[in-house]
């Protein structure tokens, strides 16, 4: 079985649509709520799509805005204008 990657955000209104978008685009992801923090674990790979977030917030979104509420992550990152990907390559 492949290893898990994870990403964690502060629990707040900015993060909510991002977490919803991740949940929709990554059916295998597991969302864990901690005090003040939401940690999302996903086996192998996790993708965050700009379009999915924009559809929820109704405005343009620059994926680098993720950094405002980001707490931590694990995995190799590949970021483009459209997608932010976390994955293990082993």
């Amino acid at each position, binding site marked *: 079985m492949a290893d*898990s990657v994870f990403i964690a955000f502060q629990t707040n209104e900015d993060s909510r649509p991002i977490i919803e978008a991740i949940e929709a685009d990554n059916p295998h992801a597991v969302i864990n709520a901690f*005090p003040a923090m939401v940690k999302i674990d996903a086996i192998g790979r996790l993708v965050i799509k700009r379009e999915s977030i924009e559809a929820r917030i109704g405005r343009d979104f620059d994926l680098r805005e993720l950094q405002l509420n980001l707490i931590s992550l694990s995995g190799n990152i590949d970021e483009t204008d459209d997608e932010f990907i976390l994955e293990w390559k082993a």
Partner: protein
Amino acid sequence: MSTNNAAPKKLSIKDNYAMLTRGLGWDTTYQPMDKVFPYDKFEGIKVHDWDKWEDPFRLTMDAYWKYQGEKERKLYAIIDAFQQNNGQFNVTDPRYINALKLFLTGVSPLEYAAHRGFALAGRNFRGAGARIACQMQAIDELRHAQTQVHTISHYNKFFNGFHDFKYMHDRVWYLSVPKSYFEDAMSAGPFEFVTAISFSFEYVLTNLLFMPFMSGAAFNGDMATVTFGFSAQSDESRHMTLGLEVVKFLLEQDPDNVPIIQKWVDKWFWRGYRLLTLVAMMMDYMLPKRIMSWQEAWETYFEKNGGALFHDLERYGIRMPRYHDVAMKEKDRISHEAWGIFYNYTHAAALHTWIPSDDEMKWLGEKYPNTFDKLYRPRLEYWREQQQAGNRFYNNTLPMLCQLCQIPMAFTEPDDPTKICYRESDYLGNKYHFCSDGCKDIFDNEPEKYVQAWLPVHQIYQGNCFEKDADPTAADFNPLAEVMRYYHINVGEDGHEFEDSPDRKNWLRWTGKPSHGGEKTPETGHAEKAT
């Protein structure tokens, strides 16, 4: 620059980042590059092509300032609100403040040290991409130090032990543990520094520091700490990524780099793990409302997440850090062993300790079924009995310190939790003592570095920790009191038993709330509620 009036096409973040990190760098011609960058070869690391360096976040300076500015506005809005609303009185109970004292006096000066360290490392790399990443991190770290000093400043108005954190960091025995850790990294070469701090600490271990602790701060009502912690942590994600990229980049550049990196990974894993003993103790003993035990945090963030990372690095020939198996054996012990040390020496510290309440001991017993009730509960109950009989135990002899990690030698044998672990090495006719094989290995590899360690206990015995006007020949000379004076620790205020502390009395007087977070434990001791 385009001269027509049509708006230029917006660059993709990849192109934008490439322009910044490739287009703006140049090779020097008045002076040879080796003279301009004199420190990036002696460690034996071979770099053939700096252009292979990729920062996956591809953050450009304009975006950096924009997002950092936004983070700062959010942070200070919350710190202001916290201060205006006397948020310090909304924490679960005043014992919690001692976790904060340890964090803010132990870790915050490291943020400043990291600022210096990354400025130095950035100067010494000849690749522009690496230099820019180090530059951003150096600015981040300065920001973290500043936000934490604001928090210190606020808590210092109400609680003891925060008043001279910078001075204490350079002198006090347990603060020498984080201090010496960071100075070891800063006095290494630039590649070892980034492998130590960016990879081994930030990537492999920092989640253990920030995630459970900040989530714990939230759970304990400390919004100021949650805020600076999470704001710092949002930068940390970028730092961790830098750590992983550095290591992958170096491993891909030359096969000769692999054994060097492995050696550093082994060393800095162990150094960082020993440092985190302080965090382990904080999580298990100092948070009135606990979120997870140290053991659980270790299993989640090191064994599982760290395991995935090292699994990923296998393709480069990197294996798990040496002695990770020892850390696994110790995971149900170190927090208890460390609390024992601080309980013994709390009168020489700028923070209070106490015996956990019955509820807390029950929790510890459930979280540590194999060790707590058998090994540590009897000791705590004995101490409590003595304390109730008016004999609160304070240890008045100085402990032997590990030459490497500088922690008092109270850790136990990997396979026998009832036996203290002692290791030693001889070097140039002197004997040096270690708490573990991990610390001994690091010393044996570079003894000429670690014989120079400034060990607080040795320094006290050598007479270097007294004020100039102290007179050791005087009949009534009290060495411990004199060392406290030198440390700027106010006896009777900053350290010793929590039950007798002014912090606790003030809390009862100011808030009228119990000092044990609403638990069943009755208020004891001689503090009285003000009317």
